[in-house]
């Protein structure tokens, strides 16, 4: 049986556009089932706003099952809210109590300009991916399965970082607005696998340097790991820092030849 949660006060960030000045707006939810997801709660609020002839709160969402990385809310000072290892869309109202006041803000980073209200533009991540988040593969017929042997621990470790859904919570949670966890997850995913070796060092160099154009610097606070819906470990950041050093030192001559 479901219970109802009563008397929720929402403080929601409203902002008309990238350059507009924003403000918090307060809304009351008198009663809601605890089975509602956080985004469903916002849907219900929006229905009410539209019925009242007001403008709906704009927020990003797509799959609503934690795999697309579109949802992005700072809830009570935590990226993706108070539940570990889940995206905003996987958060449910049962996590809250009667009478709670909940504050909702957009991700804040200069690389993620606010489009409207709670929605931000994360295409700076695309710039990082473009600069090295790919492998060169031959085209043609699909290769046989298991043609390239990959030891199980390596495959597992690569999968752990490939889980990154590009949501940007790491940047949002980082006191410095750094994107090291995202970038390192992508670097570690490909650099651990045999298919990623050809571009291993050019990849890490380009991705780190593109990251620098948009984001802050990692101070090893560890907030990103705590916020990441996929619980990607900051171990990948160490791997990226190591490969970056290797790219700059050992592989310098090889790259210089080209």
């Amino acid at each position: 049986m479901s219970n109802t949660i009563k008397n929720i006060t929402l403080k929601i960030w409203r902002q008309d556009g990238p350059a507009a000045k924003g403000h918090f707006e307060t809304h009351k939810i008198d009663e809601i089932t605890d089975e509602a997801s956080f985004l469903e709660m916002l849907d219900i609020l929006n229905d009410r706003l539209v019925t009242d002839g007001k403008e709906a709160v704009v927020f990003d969402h797509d799959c609503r099952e934690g795999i697309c990385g579109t949802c992005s809310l700072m809830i009570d000072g935590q990226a993706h809210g108070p539940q570990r290892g889940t995206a905003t869309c996987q958060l449910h109202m049962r996590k809250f109590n009667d009478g709670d006041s909940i504050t909702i803000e957009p991700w804040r980073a200069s690389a993620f300009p606010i489009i409207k209200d709670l929605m931000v533009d994360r295409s700076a991540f695309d710039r990082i991916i473009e600069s090295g988040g790919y492998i060169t593969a031959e085209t043609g017929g699909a290769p046989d399965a298991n043609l390239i042997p990959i030891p199980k621990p390596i495959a597992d470790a690569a999968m752990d970082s490939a889980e990154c859904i590009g949501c940007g919570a790491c940047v949002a949670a980082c006191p410095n607005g750094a994107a090291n966890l995202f970038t390192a997850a992508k670097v570690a995913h490909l650099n651990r696998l045999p298919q990623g070796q050809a571009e291993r060092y050019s990849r890490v160099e380009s991705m780190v340097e593109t990251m620098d154009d948009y984001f802050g610097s990692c101070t090893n606070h560890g907030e990103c790991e705590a916020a990441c819906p996929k619980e990607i470990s900051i171990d990948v950041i160490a791997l990226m820092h190591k490969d970056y050093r290797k790219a700059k030192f050992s592989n310098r001559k090889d790259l210089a030849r080209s």
Partner: protein
Amino acid sequence: MAQVVASHRGPVTGTANKAKKRRPFLLDLYSTAVGKKYAMGISGIAMMGFVLFHMIGNLKMYAGAADLDHYAHFLQTLLYPLAPKGVVLWILRGGLVAMLFLHLHAAWSLTMLNRKARPVKYQSARDYQIANFASRTMRLSGLVILAFLVWHLLDLTFGVVNSEVGNKVLYPGDTEEVKAVYVSVIASFERVPVALFYIVANILLGIHLFHGAWSIFQSFGWNNPRFNKWRRAFATGFAAVVVVGNVSFPIAVMAGVIS
């Protein structure tokens, strides 16, 4: 991912790789935030080595005036007569000053980068999960250490604020006079505010190192599941040893244990 808002960045083209700028190697490395963190780490390690040996050397204080003064003389005459007196010490000092400069410059430019990365702060309170007091006060603890360092040099190295510095003493059995370091240390710590500043600054140094000595492992990419659990222990232990050693000196003077 998100919709693209019209921006200065241009369309997604699949060719985000910029032409590489040709630069001298070290400048090239230092031009990125990750490279600057290497610089912070290297200079941090150099200064960690210094503070550890500085503390260990000063333990000579507990062996008495003659021991400490002879130790200071030993540092002054490193490699003598291969090098003139004081030269090696000044080279070491020069290296440390260079490291300090590097550390400061990197800290400054990374701080500016981070400011630029989030010009509009969160408008509601953040609820930090992992970031601790030490990691969030690196700049503050660093600046207090810097202020202390200036004072410390004016006090015991240059004697600007300590009239005992520069006096010499001839110990029985010696052929030449040595600097009376011991007396100036006692004179310095007998001023209670100075002793308190020394204690506070060293506790902040410990807090700086509690995060810093852990952080270097990540910055350099020294990450190995087999020793990862020791990284925090190393940082805590290192910070504790330096703080306990350094803080014991003013306390011993104020308590009259050494006089």
